[in-house]
């Protein structure tokens, strides 16, 4: 984990970007007022087309220019492999071109903050889509401190790591998770599916240094590779 300090949080405009969950989400948060402009577009296949124009649109609506951005927050995963590449490459290049800090937040932390915001003394488990058999998951105490490491695991392995009961199950994979965990359903107080991260809440996490990450992808698994099937013959030394 790493902190990326902000000079004067009270007078900052934070650009936030998430494409790791599926939708294209962009926000510009005015820290002083707590308000801002945000857009969520549900077109996963068009993220690469939409993202940069969407950032321009949000800035224009907020009456700001790129120079008016003080910091950039991006999700760093775990999540869609391509989505991560898009948001991280965009955020890091913006940071480089504007000479502004780029703050990484995990999708799991962002989702936990979103679902536990305004909830009193509740615990949560976040499950996110891997588009494979397993799930990205992490459970949180009511004070938002994590109960476990982030993982990419099967439904049953995740349930084994959890206490007897969790107040809220949330994330974009809740339906599939419930279908996969059999009797495990009973341990969750309520299920709150989450379609997208709130861009303004993501921006506000720029003030939570304890959950900042470097703007590097969090994969939680190795690259999808297979070694050559055919054994290569060896050439004798000269």
């Amino acid at each position, binding site marked *: 984990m790493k902190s990326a300090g902000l000079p004067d949080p009270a007078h900052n405009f934070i650009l936030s970007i998430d494409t790791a969950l599926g939708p294209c989400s962009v926000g510009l948060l005015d820290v002083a007022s707590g308000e801002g402009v945000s857009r969520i577009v549900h077109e996963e296949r068009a993220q690469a087309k939409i993202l940069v124009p969407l950032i321009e649109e949000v800035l224009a609506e907020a009456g700001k220019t790129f120079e008016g951005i003080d910091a950039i927050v991006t999700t760093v995963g775990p999540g869609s492999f391509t989505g991560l590449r898009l948001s991280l490459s965009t955020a890091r290049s913006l940071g*480089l071109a504007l000479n502004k800090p780029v703050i990484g937040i995990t999708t799991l932390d962002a989702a936990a903050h979103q679902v536990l915001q305004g909830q009193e003394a509740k615990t949560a488990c976040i499950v996110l889509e891997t588009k494979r058999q397993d799930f990205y998951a992490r459970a949180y105490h009511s004070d938002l401190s994590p109960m476990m490491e982030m993982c990419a695991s099967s439904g049953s392995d995740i349930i084994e790591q959890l206490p007897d009961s969790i107040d809220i199950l949330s994330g974009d994979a809740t339906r599939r998770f419930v279908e996969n965990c059999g009797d495990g359903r009973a341990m969750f107080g309520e299920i709150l599916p989450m379609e997208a991260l709130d861009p303004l809440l993501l921006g506000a996490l720029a003030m939570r240094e304890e959950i900042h990450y470097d703007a590097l992808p969090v994969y939680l698994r190795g690259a999808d590779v297979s070694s050559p099937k055919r054994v290569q013959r060896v050439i004798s030394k000269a």
Partner: protein
Amino acid sequence: MKVLGIETSCDETGVAIVGDDKTIHANLVLSQLKEHAAFGGVVPEIAARAHLDHLDTLLRAALDDAGATFDELDGVAATCGPGLIGGVMVGMMAGKAIAAAKKLPFIAVNHLEAHALTPRLTDNLAFPYLLLLVSGGHTQILVVEGVGQYKRWSTTLDDALGECFDKSAKLMGLPYPGGPNLEKLAGECPDPTAALERFDLPRPMLGRPELDFSFSGLKTAVRQHVDSMPGDTLDRADIAALACAFQSVVADVVTDRCKRAMERFTTEYAPNAPTLVVSGGVAANTALRNTLQGLTDTMNMSFIAPPLKLCSDNGAMIAWTGVERLRLGMTDTLDVAARPRWPLDPTAEARIGAGVKA
């Protein structure tokens, strides 16, 4: 005019800054050879991961090399296809983000066009010219009529020549990257004529009136020769001879195809100074360069092969394509999509089997 160029379509991360006066202010290429070596070839997901890891370091270093800042740029060009899409996305988004942040024109570059226009960066070459584009993904003969204007005369019907080099090298027990290692070992063969007699290899498409290529049969023949070699380990001299014979038949096929194309080019276009250009990664092969030099000499054509550094994938060719297009006002909006398949000549007749290599 200075344009930033970003290349991430395969296993090389390239960033360059090139001026409209053809000055290359910076040209950095980070090859992922080590990352892929253990797998014997380029692994798309490893490539996509590595591009993201290295790109901003290279961007910073390129600006340092050029002694420039983003504010001194006049445009941003990035490869938007064809290629491995996970990698293309990384460079494309970086280019779009910088263009947006600095209010610069964005140029979505076709990687093949960048190879095609490279001789105009290295030499003062006027349109039209004949181009043999030979890389790991493509093998085509094209007429370059102008920026964005191409006539594709032929393509490979199966493997690209670079692919055939790499796969044959792998069969011969040579390490990745195969092409350069195959060429090196072929140089050890003391008697090329005897090697050709010893290893019967096909010369696919030789003598055919259409200009297409085919290399998968050649690769299969290499496999059969290697499989018939006795013992656990392969004898180095045997492999050197096979590599030498392989290069020789490749040269025969490419010469035959190019000779026919050159005849057609001079007839149809009657250019003032007819020129054949070879570009793409395989253009780094010295044997092929020498063969084509000899062929153009006998046909009174000029021959241009860009320096090795500008033949393999690099950012300078992307930046230069940005210069060429920017000068003509051919810029792109920031909502362009990456294109895994992006033919230079969309009107060219489809060839059965050619797939994305067309």
